[in-house]
Structure formats: structure tokens, C-alpha cells
């Protein structure tokens, strides 16, 4: 997983999918057929290459001029492998939710590619896009606003079938919805109830059932448990893990709670101000972080154990995240970094295995975008 270095060589970065040719947008039928091809476990199902999203800042009412751009996502690359969970963590405003929207093609990428089974979905539209969307579904953060209060649970979970009628024939839908309710641990008799009759945890289960309705292969979860109570969070996390095994799903799990991300993820990417700071397996990131931002983030997590707490070293960052409209030159983290030197202001560090760890057989040898990458265990005392 760590041996590919997509940031360094973005051009030839889709090596594993040669069997599925990057589809010509004109030959839509071919493209749709390619989507049904199964992906082996451990093969990449989603490949993101140099993804960029800039939101323009304009001035003037009649004559609009662009005066700048909010660089929400500024060139990130990663792979999602079949059957795994990739966690994405970062502070608010680092662009993690924008990544989710770009992967769903809810926002048009400014540049860069997202390959789903070898097909670039950022350029798709119409029928081909609809076919892709069937396979990539999303679970939203707030179970209170992501369900229409005027629709019954049956209508909410069954709505995807209106858009993709080929998945379930009309007469079969009610039974399927009841099955889905059962799968997510809700009573199938609740099919005619409305969202307000459910608690937060139950609503999130409804959201998950809706996400599962079309038998997707990839589910993008944007902060799926952060609005829930502690005791209910664990239930929903366990449910998501069970469903992953049962339906062979690949998750992108976006969250700001590092403990939960560690629990559910196989690999973790740390984002800062639109860039990926560090990416690796959960052990590499949590036990052997090499990027100072990851180290600071981990050390700031409150630990529910007062004794371990007192022994741990804490790195408290000063200040706030700079504005993504005007990010610092060079390394974006340098304004808050205690290691920053002149080089950091001049050169943008690439996301690659740091020079000093190259070839070495240590868990620290994973991709990290820092000129002065150094291993430091901050989780253990």
C-alpha cells in the first residue's frame, strides 16, 4: 500500500487497472458494462489523482470578477482498496467534506481525476454518471436534517429505487425496504413511521439503510457518528463494521474523532488545509507518525484515563488554521509548526516516503509530506 507514491508521479498513476481501459465518454454502453465487473479484494476500487477543487471568490454584482479562490482541496491523491476502510481526519475547514462531495460528483472538480474501476468519473454526465452513482453512496453527518420529515421511512429508504428502477421491480420494493430495516437493526414494522418518531441513533440507521438500498460497492461516510451520543455511537460503529463484512463494502470514513477513525479504519489519511499531510496504515499513523501535524493532532486527543493523561506529552498548537483562500507558501502547516525552517516557506513538501526512511523496514516508512519528517510516538506515554 505504501509503495505507490502517487503524488510524486501522478501521470502514470493508474497502473493496476489496465484490464479496464479508461473509458471513452462517448462509448457509454461500454462504460456502464465495465462498472459491473467485480473488483478483487485488495485491488484499488477508487483511485484519486491530484484532485483539486477551488471555489472562486468574486467581486462585483453586475460585472463579476474573480479575485481569488478558496483552495478547499488542492491536489490530493489516494487509493481506496476493495473491502477496506480508509479514514480521513483533519480539522474543520481542511477540505475533508469537499473530498466527499467530489467523490460523489456532487461538486465538479476543478482538475484532477477520480477513477472508479478505471473510469474517470469527474468528467461523466448523464446515464454514465447515474450508473456510477448507484455504486457509490453516501451517509451523512446529521441524521436530523438528512431525512425528509414529510416522508415515511419506507419512502425514504425506497426513494433510490425510483431513480434506479432496474434494481428492484415495483412490486418488490416494500419487501426490500423491510429487509433493509431488518439489516440495520430496526423493526420492519416501522416502515410507515416518520423520521421524528425515531431517536438520533435510529435515524442514522435509516440513513445507512438508504445508503445500502442500491447494493453499492463504496460508501462515503461523512462524520456518520459525530452527532450521536457516546453509547449509541458504539452501536452504529459496530453496525457499520458488520455491514462491511456482510456486503463486502469499501468505506471512506471521514471524521474528526481520531479514536473512532482508528477503531474502524485499515488505513488513515490526515488532511491539512486541502492537502494530504500523511497517509498510511492505522498502525503507521497512530503508532509511528512522522508528520508534525499528525503528532500534534494525536497528542491533543483527550484520553479517558487520568493517569495515562498526566504522563503523556502534549503538543498544543498555537493559533488557528490559516484561511484556505490565502494559504501559506511552501508547507501549509509551517505557520503553526515548531520545526519550521526557511526551507518550509520556500518548498512545498511532497507526499512521499521520507528520504531517511526509504528502503528501511520500519513502520515509519510511509508517505508523509514533511521536509523534516521524524518519528515520534505521542499516543503512548
Amino acid at each position, binding site marked *: 500500500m505504501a509503495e505507490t507514491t502517487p503524488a510524486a508521479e501522478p501521470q502514470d498513476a493508474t497502473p493496476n487497472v489496465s484490464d479496464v481501459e479508461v473509458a471513452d465518454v462517448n462509448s457509454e454502453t461500454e462504460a456502464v458494462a465495465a462498472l459491473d465487473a467485480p473488483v478483487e479484494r485488495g485491488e484499488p476500487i477508487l483511485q484519486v489523482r491530484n484532485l483539486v477543487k477551488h471555489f472562486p471568490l468574486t467581486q462585483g454584482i453586475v460585472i463579476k470578477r474573480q479575485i481569488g479562490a478558496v483552495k478547499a482541496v488542492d491536489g490530493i491523491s489516494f487509493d481506496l482498496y476493495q473491502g477496506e476502510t480508509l479514514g480521513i481526519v483533519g480539522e474543520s475547514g481542511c477540505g475533508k467534506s469537499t473530498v466527499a462531495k467530489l467523490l460523489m460528483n456532487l461538486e465538479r472538480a476543478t482538475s484532477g481525476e477520480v477513477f472508479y474501476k478505471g473510469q474517470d468519473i469527474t468528467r461523466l454526465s448523464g446515464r454514465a454518471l447515474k450508473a456510477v452513482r448507484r455504486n457509490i453512496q453516501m451517509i451523512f453527518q446529521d441524521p436530523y436534517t438528512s431525512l425528509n420529515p414529510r416522508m415515511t421511512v419506507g419512502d425514504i429508504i425506497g426513494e433510490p429505487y425510483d431513480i434506479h428502477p432496474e434494481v428492484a421491480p415495483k412490486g418488490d420494493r416494500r419487501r426490500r425496504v423491510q429487509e433493509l430495516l431488518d439489516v440495520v437493526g430496526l423493526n420492519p414494522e416501522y416502515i410507515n413511521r416518520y423520521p421524528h418518531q425515531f431517536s438520533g441513533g435510529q435515524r442514522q440507521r435509516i440513513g445507512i439503510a438508504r445508503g445500502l438500498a442500491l447494493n453499492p460497492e463504496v460508501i462515503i461516510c461523512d462524520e456518520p457518528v459525530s452527532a450521536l451520543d457516546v453509547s449509541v455511537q458504539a452501536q452504529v460503529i459496530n453496525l457499520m463494521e458488520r455491514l462491511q463484512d456482510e456486503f463486502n463494502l469499501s468505506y471512506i470514513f471521514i471524521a474528526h474523532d481520531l479514536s473512532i477513525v*482508528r477503531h474502524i479504519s485499515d488505513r488513515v489519511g490526515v488532511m491539512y488545509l486541502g492537502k494530504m499531510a500523511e497517509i498510511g496504515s492505522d498502525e503507521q499513523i497512530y503508532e509511528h507518525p512522522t508528520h508534525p501535524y499528525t503528532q500534534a493532532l494525536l497528542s491533543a486527543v483527550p484520553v479517558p484515563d487520568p493517569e495515562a493523561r498526566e504522563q503523556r506529552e502534549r503538543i498544543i498548537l498555537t493559533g488557528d488554521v490559516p484561511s484556505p483562500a490565502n494559504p501559506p507558501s511552501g508547507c501549509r502547516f509551517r505557520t503553526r509548526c515548531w520545526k519550521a525552517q526557511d526551507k518550509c516557506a520556500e518548498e512545498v513538501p511532497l507526499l512521499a516516503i521520507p528520504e531517511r526512511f526509504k528502503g528501511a523496514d520500519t513502520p515509519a516508512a510511509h508517505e508523509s509530506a514533511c521536509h523534516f519528517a521524524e518519528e515520534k510516538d505521542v499516543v503512548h506515554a
Partner: protein
Amino acid sequence: MTIIDPTDAAPASLSGDGKGKGPLLDVRDLHVEFQTRDGVVKAVNGVNYSVNSGETLAVLGESGSGKSVTAQAIMGILDMPPARIPQGEIRFYGEDMLTMSAEERRKLRGARIAMIFQDALSALNPVLSVGFQLGEMFRVHQGMSRKEAKAKAIELMDRVKIPAAAARVNDYPHQFSGGMRQRIMIAMALALEPDLIIADEPTTALDVTVQAQVMDLLAELQREYQMGLILITHDLGVVADVADKIAVMYAGRIVETAPVHELYKRPAHPYTRGLLDSIPRLDQKGQELYAIKGLPPNLLKVPSGCAFNPRCEKAQDICRTDRPPLVPVTEADGSELPGRASACHFWKETIHG
């Protein structure tokens, strides 16, 4: 203590010499209920706790456990009706605030007891500058002029470490980041150097790095002013950092109290144990998370007996019929454990077994 002499703002009966007589705040058998169309919601059912000067009490609980309602009752900011306080006492320096007149309570609020709210963006007025809102404390409570109040506001913003305070005093809340807004909330609570601060989920809306900054600031200011602090939260991690003692609430009752180290080491209530087991840990990757089954109870119909019994693995018949009182917890050999109590019929098995 440069800002003011706190005794100036206080009613005569509560002047500084009240200090040292028992706890700063003593809540006794507090009940709060809400009249709704569907019936009476019993949000708080007999809560007891006390806080001393310089002490931090963490009140831990899920949504609907009554932790925020208790705090609002102490502040006297409950809407009555629909809320009602059928019984109980809230003693501040020994005097029951529930029997005071509205005017007396208004004088205490802000000056002696202050509150920090969870969501700083909605707690601050968006159309007034932060300097004006901070200065309001001094104008209303102390009759200062606008100019003096603004100078005080700058001083306060400096104190909570907002960079370039003098330049930013005329900025509006939306011009500040989440962490800075929370600092302004803290500054506002500190303005009149109260004896007690109630912080209701002060860092829930913040990122971890900013959360650490804000909690550090709060702890530092508390030490400096020797204030009592009630920290309301659902995050066991935050509590471990700053609290001296903890009260765990469930369905409007306190189910366990303990000094902070003791609680994490040996919980004496199955609910506390479940909560501790259900949080994923940063330093270990377990298999399946332990999850407390079921849902928090509907406060319109709290289960009979122990409110936690439908979700409890240890529940027996007695749990469904008799409500367990909050009893002191002792060592296996009977020696006392100061500050510890549990409302479980089987606390002995839970803590020692």
C-alpha cells in the same frame, strides 16, 4: 484581581465574608419538570451535588440525562412555564436561590455565577460587536461608561489570549474563528470575576487542537481566580483532563459520583462501566466495540425501578421494582471511599467483581 472588587456587585447578604462557610454551591434534591402536551416530562428527579471554590465538578451524561437542565436551573434561566421546580434547594453560600426575588437573582447572574454556552456562534449576538457585548457586563452591572467598558473589554480579550485585542474589539462574532469565539464566551463569563462558572459543553463544537487550547485556558483561569467550575459534558476524555470529581447522570438522576481517578479505575455503576467500555481508544485497536444496548429512556415514561434496567446486563427483578438510592461506596473490607457513591443495587459486584 485587578478588574473589580467582587463584593461591590453582590447583595449585602452574600458579601465576601460568606466564603468558607460550607460549599460554594449546594444543590439539594432538585426536581425540574416540564409541562408538555403529551404529559409531564420529569427532566431532573432529585439531584444532589456541591462545588467548592477552586474545585471542578464534571457532570457527565448523554443527551436527555438532565445535565443541562440542572445547570439552567442553577443559573435561573429556565423558561417557567413550561418548566417547574416542584421541590429542591439550590444553595449559594448557604442561601437558597430558589426563594430569592427575581431582582436578587438577576444581580447574582453574571456577577457571581456565570455560564459558558456550547455554541458560541448562536450565543453571541451577530449584530453587535464583541467589544460591545463584553462591555455590556460592566455597563449593566457596574454602570460604567461606554468608553470605560470598552477598555475593560480589551483587557478581557487580552486575558483570554486573543491576539491583537485592541484592534479586534470592534469586530463582529462572524469575523472570529470557532476557538476565538469560545474564548470570547469565556471572557464574558469571567468579566465580573464570578465565584462559580458553569460551562455547558464548552468544547464540543471545536476541533481537538483548539479544544486542547480552550480547556487549558479555562483551567488556567480557574486556578488564577480560584473559581468553582461545573463542567457539563458527554466526553469522558475531556473530563479526565480537568475534573476533580465527577457526577454521572442518567434519566434525571445522579447514578454515580466519584473522584476522577477512582471513577476511571473502578466504576461502581454498570452505566458508567458501559460508557467507559464503549469509547474507542487511541492507543489500542480492539475487535468489536462494547455497546450499551437500547436507547436512553423517554422521559415521559421513565422505566420503573432503576431507570437503566432495560439496558443493563446485570438487571434482576429487584432492579425493575425498586429504585436504588444513591448509597456510599466502600472498599471490599468496609473501609470508606470518600466522595464515592453509586445508585445500583449491585454496586458491590460492579466495583469489586
